[in-house]
């Protein structure tokens, strides 16, 4: 430790510096906070992609993501898949489906490609030809809508 005379000298010098040091530290902390907020906001948007788009990201979007962001996305979707599998019985429950409450029993659908014959409840068969439109029970069509065979027509 310094002798008392030296100490008071050093203190006098340092008082000027203390404010500068504090100011610089505040700036650095602010920069850190802004940076982390920006990065985390990007992560939140990437997370939203999993829910709104699906588990496979198109190349156009991946082009704008850093390698670490892609890795974060892969870890997130794996974690989510593990959780969804653990819910509701053997196959699990896909929580990214059924986003809106089911409104009607029957829905208007348009056929996007030839799918062949399709049996309806009362035994009659419908021919699913490209561009044909039908009025079918919702629950029977859902998996075909997801596969892209049928398209829900909202008038």
């Amino acid at each position, binding site marked *: 430790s310094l002798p008392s005379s030296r100490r008071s000298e050093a203190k006098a010098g340092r008082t000027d510096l203390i404010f500068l040091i504090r100011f610089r530290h505040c700036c*650095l*902390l602010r920069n*850190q*906070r802004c*940076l*982390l907020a920006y*990065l*985390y906001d990007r*992560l939140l948007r990437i*997370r939203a992609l999993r829910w709104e788009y699906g588990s496979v990201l198109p190349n156009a979007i991946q082009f704008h993501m*850093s390698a*670490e*962001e892609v*890795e*974060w996305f892969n*870890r*997130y979707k794996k*974690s*989510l898949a*593990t*959780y969804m599998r*653990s*819910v*509701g019985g053997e196959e699990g*429950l*896909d*929580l990214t*489906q*059924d986003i*809106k*409450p*089911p409104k009607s*029993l029957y829905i208007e659908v348009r056929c996007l490609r030839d799918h062949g014959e399709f049996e309806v*409840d*009362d035994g009659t068969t419908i021919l699913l030809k490209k561009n044909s439109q039908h009025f079918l*029970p*919702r*629950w029977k069509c859902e998996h075909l809508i997801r596969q892209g065979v049928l398209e829900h027509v909202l008038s």
Partner: protein
Amino acid sequence: QEANLKRAKRGDLKVSVHHMEIERIRFVLSSYLRCRLVKIEKFFPHILEKEKSRAEGEPSILSPEEFAFAKEYMANTEAYLKNVALKHMPPNLQKVSLLKSVPKPNLDSFVFLRVLERQENILVEPETDEQREYAINLEEGSQHLIRYRTVAPLVASGAVQLI
């Protein structure tokens, strides 16, 4: 013939209604679980901290699978921020407390509730400096708008129901 048709139609309707019910249940269940996941992701450091400081006999607020999901989310996010930003910063800025940075849930927000079991002498905190704290009784079946913090233990015990 007509009887057959009637039977077939009735069966069809039952089946349709049954399916509608399944869809509705699936939606309600999915929506509920989604809501929980959203909350876990939004408040993850605080939820994990609460779980860490949970007493032995106290029930967890998370299912084991939710707990695993929360831990994975935290580890994933922490590792990302460390590798992309923090490790490139000056040494004294390389750690950040997510507990301090991530906003806490606002336990003072007002909630609507319905009383299931009569409660006596619930202490209500004053809103202004002129007021003093006072006690109220919650009658069974009554509905109130009150700060969550005041009734938090009653929600946990099931004595009141949030609406």
